[in-house]
């Protein structure tokens, strides 16, 4: 059984517009999947359905065997979602209070909460900012905080919606480094972006979306030729020899 199974997923807006049509794919444990496509291709709606925030018009989402539409609360413990706008997701008055928010909602004991918040601060390098107001953090730090928020409740899968948007070069490096570390420690990463060049060196699966449908999916190098027709352009298309050199990370 795959960690995430999506079968014939469709979503129609109340005005009748189709946002998703017959979307099916699977994600394996420990993989790094990139979902790309032009604006309005249904990527954000797809993530919200996977997180159980929106009920699909038809189709089925199973996260580690749990039906996301029927048991959204349980599904969210397994599937953490980092929103595109960090400010929407940050609710705490300080960095550590913000990380604690999700844990408190799951009802963990105070001892566990304290340890887990400390772990997340260390993991994301935010310990020096623990008592700082989140609004005073930089873009990259805010994004790392939202990753810490989501990872605090230990989901097996972490999905990120355009995590590099609005970030400067150091900000992109901080976030990318974090994601690669998470993936190396065994977490499944799903990343929605149209900025393929930043992430392809680390991804193993690519899903291309166009007009609410999956246009192509599979291993990165095999799927990449279809990218241009889905509104995703790359300055240079990598080969098996050059793809690893595309990384933005030095290590």
């Amino acid at each position, binding site marked *: 059984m795959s960690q995430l199974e999506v079968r014939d997923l469709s979503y129609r807006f109340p005005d009748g517009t189709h946002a998703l049509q017959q979307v099916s794919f699977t994600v394996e444990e420990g993989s790094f999947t990139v979902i790309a496509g032009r604006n309005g291709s249904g990527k954000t709606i797809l993530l*919200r359905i996977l*997180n159980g*925030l929106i009920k699909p018009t038809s189709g089925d989402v199973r996260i580690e065997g749990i039906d996301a539409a029927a048991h959204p*609360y349980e599904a*969210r*413990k397994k599937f953490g*979602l980092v*929103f595109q*706008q960090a*400010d*929407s*997701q940050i*609710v*705490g*008055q*300080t960095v550590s*209070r913000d990380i*604690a*928010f*999700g844990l*408190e*909602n*799951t*009802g963990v004991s105070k001892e566990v909460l304290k340890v887990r918040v400390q772990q997340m601060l260390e993991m994301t390098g935010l310990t020096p900012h623990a008592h700082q*107001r989140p*609004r005073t953090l930089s873009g990259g730090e805010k994004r790392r905080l939202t990753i810490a*928020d*989501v990872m605090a*409740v230990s989901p097996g899968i972490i999905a990120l919606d355009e995590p590099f948007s609005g970030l400067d070069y150091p900000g992109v490096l901080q976030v990318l480094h974090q994601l690669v570390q998470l993936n190396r420690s065994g977490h499944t990463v799903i990343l929605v972006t149209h900025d393929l060049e930043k992430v392809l060196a680390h991804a193993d699966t690519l899903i291309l979306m166009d007009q609410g449908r999956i246009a192509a999916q599979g291993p990165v190098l095999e799927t990449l030729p279809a990218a241009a027709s889905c509104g995703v352009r790359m300055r240079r298309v990598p080969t098996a020899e050059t793809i690893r050199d595309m990384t933005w990370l030095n290590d």
Partner: protein
Amino acid sequence: MAERLIFHYHDRDTPLHRLDPRSKMFAMAVLTIMVFNLPPAGLLLIMLYTATGIIIAGMPIREYRRESLFFGMFALIIFLTRWWGSSMPLEALIGSLRFLTIVLIGMLMTETTSPDDMALALFWLLRRFSRRAAYGAAARLNLTVSFFPVIFDAVQEISEARKSRQEQRLRRPLQRMISMSTQILDVIIDRAEEISYALESRGFREDILHGELSWGRRDTLFLLLSTLCFTAATAAVLIP
């Protein structure tokens, strides 16, 4: 994102910030009642008490001035309409001072008390009547207070964006007001939707409160001081 100051909680280390939210809520409730019921001498004492609080809380008064302009204008309207209606300028002045004092008390409360702490205090107050209703009221208060900055930021962003596009303030004011209100409403609804999804995604539950209350000696002292001030203000009523 814009950084508005007014009606935002600011995490500072001052005696007022360290107080238990219940003592501040109690003081705020009594002050508000007294503002509306005391004659001018009592009102002046309450104003003095609130002003002392503002200084102790370290509120950046200069920065607040511009953002408080709206309330100043409103106080002026109250003064003019009451003066026009009653022909008694002193009574009109007291009316607008009462309004400004209430605004200052509200600013002091939101500046020094986090939304989480306000929710905890409200829950503590209402829990004896109905736990479920208390959770609901506390969660609603928390969300509402947390949402203030979003509204203020949206208003500021939109008004600055329109200004940068050469919008004339005095040209067709009614049309401008309608267009701007619609735009602000659109942005606020969008952000509210995004925030509600994010909260749901993070497992937000109405029946789980965040943080904890701790009543200390400083709270008892604060209540004693407040009672002293309230008594003095009430005595001012009795002394002819």
